């Protein structure tokens, strides 16, 4: 599924709810939690993360690597980011419920 068709901000905010992650970890976490259903080019991750930082929803820190190698830039939610995540989740639930109701009716009448 193309994440452009969903709310990429929601995907990233929800992923970071688990704690601070760096770029490649975020991608792996998304793949893991969606069983690979959400695929996006790795390069597109960073502009989205930078946008969230500019919005004040996410903050960054450079931390030493726990597995050796160079330091990594970790992203974690701010208080505002947590609130934004909750709000986006609520919006998503309402959209999903509305679509579920619509799809159920279509499926019942065999329109699709």
């Amino acid at each position: 599924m193309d994440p452009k068709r969903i709310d990429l901000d929601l995907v990233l905010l929800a992923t970071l709810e688990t704690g601070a992650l760096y770029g490649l970890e975020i991608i792996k976490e998304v793949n893991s939690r969606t069983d690979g259903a959400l695929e996006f080019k790795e390069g597109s991750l960073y502009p989205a993360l930078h946008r969230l930082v500019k919005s004040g929803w996410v903050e960054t820190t450079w931390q030493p690597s726990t597995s050796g190698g160079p330091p990594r830039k970790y992203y974690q939610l701010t208080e505002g980011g947590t609130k934004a995540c909750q709000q986006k989740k609520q919006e998503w639930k309402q959209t999903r419920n509305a679509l579920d109701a619509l799809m159920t009716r279509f499926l019942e009448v065999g329109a699709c």
Partner: protein
Amino acid sequence: VLKRRSIDKYIQQVTAGLPQLERVDTAAELRVHLLQKTQELMAQGFLREEAEHLAVQEMGPVAATNRALLGHIFTTKFGWRVLGFISLTVVAWTGWHFRYIIFWPQAEIQRSEITAPELSRALGMSNIIGGGHLVYNMTLPQGTKYIHVNTWKYSRQNSLEIGGLTMTAPEQAKPEPETMRLIVSEGHSFEEQGRSFYFIGSFGTRGGIGSTTEEKWTLLPTTQPRVEGIGRKTIELNKWLPIALYTSFTNGTTYPREAAIIGILASDLDPTDRSNKAQTARNLARRICLGGLPISVNKIEIVQAQDKTSIPKVANDCSPSR
């Protein structure tokens, strides 16, 4: 070396255009990402070169990521140059198009001299002789739509008379300053049906002296005519400005037999509008009353209303003083 180049090249291109600090920070983050990805791919059995190549490939298109990081579409030097060129062109065109709105020259009238041959060429007349022809170069105020040139003629026998002409200002057709010329010439230079007269002509100076003659004017039967004019004055929109005085004397007398004051008005009011016309007439009459007819024995001068010291006593009925 080849592989390192692919990562370096990617990082360089994808961070192009970012502010320096942000570029360094993003480049470091991307390098860590690509190196870890390379390590993981190598662990899967790829050679380093292959792993680096694949790591870069998985990042996706460079231009799209660069645009997303920048937040705009001008991702290349060429793009910025095109933007700069377009911006400069727009600024230059706007500046040039509105140059006279931004830098409008001083609106003024300035007297200069013109020789009889020049005047002959300008007006296409062969019988112009002598000197004393006055030429006024006018730079009109911004917004001028019409130029009124009037005379207020006076004689001992006659009351004040008003006559004049209205010309459409060049600005109406071309929104830029235009220098026009008015010519006031001594009567003795012309002969027509045995009578001397003075003459006012006007023509643009864009094509040099003399292209079209706008007006030929009043006859004043007289001898010893004399014309005196102002030197240099600022022209204000919708305010009359006396520019010259014509007098004629009978032989052996010191009082002028006839006199006419010549004034101009640069206006943005439509002269065909009755209210504007009435207003123009009131302004004109008020001006001449305030100024009086500035004639004194052996002294001819042109005054304006604000020149209190030069204004002779003003008669209530605007009749001239002697």
